[in-house]
């Protein structure tokens, strides 16, 4: 039998009686139109995970990389060794910050659809990952985020109007309209400039942490990347450096199951957990329910205490789900089952904390509805204010000649010449 694809004539050669090799190309469990099925997920009880000492040797806690740190159980009760026992005011602050982030996302997504900017990325369903961590870190700890951690800026009370100005690339944009929307930089909030190139921030965070340690500082660094970009070389370089120098850094993997249209299997999820990457590097690894803000808080606090005790880095996998598309540029209904987000077995982070707060008697449905209304108005008013500074493509941008600034500290001659040439050309054209 001749295989029509066997153009090289490799099959059926004399002496080759071995079975043909097969290439495994991963396929997600469900595509559009198919039923989502998460029954294969092994979700341990909320109080099942033990809590090792913060200074535990990584070799003694490898199981943590394969389990799941949880706090909130199915009834909204905070249970188990990881329960951070937060005061009511912190719980309500978490709830409000997550709700504000969601309202902000909704407003800015709509602004993009209205043509007011080029691009947006929502963090819907993943708010707990950023906000739980931000509230567990000290305000002066340095964050090296990926592009879906807007919750950190909101948790650190960075003005949302400044975020909107950046998204609109308008004359109020502190980054002078140079960056794609949501690629914030906020030094005053301990928030490193977002690159857009994936996982480049990982070795940078490790370098910052190494510098802090070398200088005898007390501040630590934290960084985030998606599960898909753990495949980047930078991730592995960073893990090696973090392990070698026992850097005071927290490395977060936001496993939201999808990298644009590629499911987590293309980053290795069929073979093992992402937290298990820590095992090979000999660093502490935790796998956490990323939709449980109390678990995220507790794990981050554990890792921060570990780092401050000079006990080394921690790699945390936050197991969550990307409810919306990757960005405004893709339609998830084209590549995944529409049922997935509603069937996600770990629920919604805001709904779960809300349930917990109501169970504690510190919150109720009416107050929640009032808060949502208030936050929607807050972001609407902020957006109107930001739009006074302009929206993308409507002229209210930084002056053209500013394009040449900040390439270097001092503008060299060749850039001055190019700047002048541009201005002369526009002038000659009568513009």
């Amino acid at each position: 039998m001749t295989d029509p694809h066997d153009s090289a004539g490799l099959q059926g050669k004399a002496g080759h009686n071995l079975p043909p090799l097969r290439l495994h190309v991963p396929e997600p469990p469900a595509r559009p139109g198919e039923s989502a099925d998460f029954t294969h997920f092994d979700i341990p009880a909320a109080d099942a995970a033990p809590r090792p000492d913060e200074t535990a040797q990584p070799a003694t806690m490898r199981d943590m990389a394969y389990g799941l740190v949880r706090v909130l159980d199915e009834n909204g009760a905070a249970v188990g060794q990881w329960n951070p026992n937060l005061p009511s005011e912190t719980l309500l602050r978490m709830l409000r910050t997550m709700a504000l982030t969601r309202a902000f996302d909704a407003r800015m997504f709509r602004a993009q659809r209205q043509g007011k900017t080029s691009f947006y990325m929502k963090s819907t369903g993943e708010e707990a990952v950023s906000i739980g961590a931000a509230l567990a870190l000290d305000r002066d700890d340095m964050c090296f985020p990926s592009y879906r951690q807007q919750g950190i800026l909101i948790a650190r009370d960075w003005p949302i109007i400044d975020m909107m100005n950046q998204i609109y690339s308008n004359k109020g944009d502190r980054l002078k309209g140079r960056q794609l929307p949501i690629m914030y930089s906020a030094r005053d909030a301990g928030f490193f400039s977002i690159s857009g190139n994936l996982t480049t921030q990982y070795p940078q965070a490790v370098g910052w942490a190494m510098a802090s340690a070398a200088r005898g500082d007390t501040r630590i660094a934290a960084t985030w990347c998606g599960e898909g970009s753990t495949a980047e070389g930078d991730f592995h370089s960073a893990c090696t450096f973090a392990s070698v120098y026992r850097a005071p850094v927290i490395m977060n993997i936001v496993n939201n199951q999808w990298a644009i249209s590629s499911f987590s299997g293309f980053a290795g999820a069929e073979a093992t957990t992402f937290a298990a990457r820590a095992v090979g590097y000999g660093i502490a690894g935790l796998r956490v329910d990323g939709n449980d803000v109390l678990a995220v808080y507790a794990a981050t606090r554990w890792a921060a205490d570990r780092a401050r005790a000079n006990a080394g880095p921690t790699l945390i996998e936050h197991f969550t789900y990307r409810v919306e598309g990757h960005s405004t540029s893709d339609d998830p209904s084209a590549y995944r089952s529409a049922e997935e987000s509603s069937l996600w077995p770990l629920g919604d982070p805001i709904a779960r904390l809300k349930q917990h707060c109501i169970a504690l008697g510190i919150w109720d449905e009416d107050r929640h509805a009032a808060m949502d209304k208030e936050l929607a108005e807050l972001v609407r008013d902020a957006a109107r204010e930001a739009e006074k500074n302009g929206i993308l493509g409507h002229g209210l941008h930084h002056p053209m000649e500013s394009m040449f600034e900040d390439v270097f500290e001092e503008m060299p001659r060749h850039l001055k010449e190019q700047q002048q040439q541009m201005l002369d050309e526009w002038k000659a054209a009568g513009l």
Partner: protein
Amino acid sequence: MEGGGAVSDVMTQDAGTDVQQMNMIQAINSAMDVMMERDPTVVVMGEDVGFFGGVFRATAGLQQKYGKNRVFDTPITECGIIGVAVGMGAYGLRPVPEIQFADYIYPALDQLVSEAGRLRYRSAGEFIAPMTVRSPFGGGIFGGQTHSQSPEGIFTHCSGIKTVIPSTPYDAKGLLIAAIEDNDPTIFFEPKRIYNGPFDGEYDTPATSWAGHADAQVPTGYYRIPLGKARIARAGGALTILCYGTMVHVVEHTVAMLGLDAEIVDLRSLVPLDIETIEASVKKTGRCLIVHEATRTSGFGAELLAQVQERCFHYLEAPIERVTGFDTPYPHSLEWAYFPGPVRIREAINKIMKD
């Protein structure tokens, strides 16, 4: 010191500094030593740079003197080395990472090009990457295709990165100090063929040392040579030759053999480029030859040729010529056929001078 003399370029120098004979390695080591002494934020990192002092000995003694928190060995990941240096720069340190050979710099390209080179711009000045990446480059040592390359044109093509290449011990120290003090990322390519002595391109004659060379008299203290200022290695009127690194010495030798009154411009810094000096020289001589060891297509010579043409077209008596490495990998056994040596330079000069 031949025309132009390096000492006249000194901007700042400690009063009463002693001068010593140094080869280029010693001068580079001295630059880091001086800067680590002056500035506690300067840190040196890279493969084998710590206890061992570097495979070329450029960091010898620094760890013993300044401790492991400031001079340390790294894992073998160039991406990691530069990424960590970006983070250290964001913290407020002034890293001087070493990439052991320029041929190994490619895994670090994303961190250099997309991160270090754009950080100031994309953050509107909130964060900077004040690092100086030292890396031995160039051939002539039978290093084969992985220890001989000249990738400077890759970096000059990218925004936000300075590219500096010294040709003498004196310049190496003054330029390296300026690069370390500079608040922008700088690639500092060290022509390893001339670490221990100038090389005239005559590969079958005994190697010479820096001993007795005027530009090997190096102040032991602090001085800096500004980035973006070329050096007239030889003043002349017949022809302008633009070159840098090892090629400066090969060109000087070839010109001397021909007895030609050429003006040799040692660029020292490709970005920023001292176009004023280049333009003035070519307008004076009316002829221009460009010599570099890197591959030709899209090499820095193409940029030089374009700029000279744009600025000096009406002054030119002959077409501008380039002598460069060929567009092949650096061949091991055929190194001297590839290397832009005196034979090839002489042929190009004869062609230019014929018109």
